[in-house]
């Protein structure tokens, strides 16, 4: 099926969950990312169970500080 991720149309597997998309997209700091699907925020506790549908528009929203602190979170996050 086709979904839009951060403004780009992508072909993904049917039945893909938000968690699987996060992994597939190599999202930095997955434990702190905010996800919106069709302009609604998805509760982080439901990433595993939220199944994406054809035509869904997904956005990832990241914490961004002033150029220092978040960097180390990203380092930390990518080590996991």
């Amino acid at each position, binding site marked *: 099926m086709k979904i839009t991720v951060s403004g780009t149309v992508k072909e993904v597997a049917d039945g893909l969950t938000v968690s699987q998309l996060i992994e597939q997209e190599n999202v930095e700091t997955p434990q702190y990312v905010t996800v919106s699907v069709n302009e609604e925020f998805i509760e982080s506790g439901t990433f595993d169970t939220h199944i994406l549908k054809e035509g869904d528009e997904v956005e990832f929203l990241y914490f961004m500080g002033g150029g*220092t602190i978040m960097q180390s979170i990203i380092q930390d996050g990518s080590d996991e």
Partner: protein
Amino acid sequence: MPFTNEQLERYSRHIILKEIGAKGQKKLLNAKVLIIGAGGLGAPAALYLAAAGVGTIGIADADVVDLSNLQRQVIHSTNDIGKKKVDSAAETMRAINPDVTVNTYYQFVNSENISDLIKDYDFILDGTDNFPAKFLINDACVMAKKPLSHAGIIRFKGQLTTIIPGEGPCYRCIFKNPPPKDAVPTCKQAGVIGAMGGVIGSLQAMEAVKYITGVGELLSGYLLTYDALKMEFHKIKLPPRGKGCAVCSDHPTITTLIDYEQAVCDLH
């Protein structure tokens, strides 16, 4: 008060814009903007707002100018190393435009002082570099119904949104809480490209000018992200305000200001 001849000339490129005109320039001269943080974001924002003739500009920062700041904090010069950032910034702003009254606040914002700090200003610009401050500023602005430009920068990326309390979503609508303190083990790899503050801080100044003059559409309800490596801007539409938000919903669960613990980290 009518414009002086000098003001007519100084602001002629504003006045000639039909969207701004003499009326808009008057609004700028009567406006009060508070910039919190005189660093990578606050520096370019302060320069442009002073040049634009924003009549009163407050600047709050508890730091002194360090050599490592000069790669991006363009309001300070080599001669300013060791000076309070607010004093160095004020000097530069006054030199650019003597029309501007600059108020300096040599202090960190906290739950005790922020409400008093923001209360006399029309628009608040968050140029801070840490999450406790960003959440505090958001909550205080929501509670006091002060419009706010929020921004963050890192490496080759930046983002910003404009928060109009009671109308659009706030920072806490997007991010419920700051990342935990223990998620920040080290800062040794920190970095940001200098011009990123220029791009995003200038966009914050642009939002302040638009808010004051009432021109165009604000970045309320959107998060604008910028990726310098891909040279891409992306505008993310946010859900409406308040839905389940702890601070800006109609039944907020956070009603007092919180001082989150700052991760121990040498920011220089």
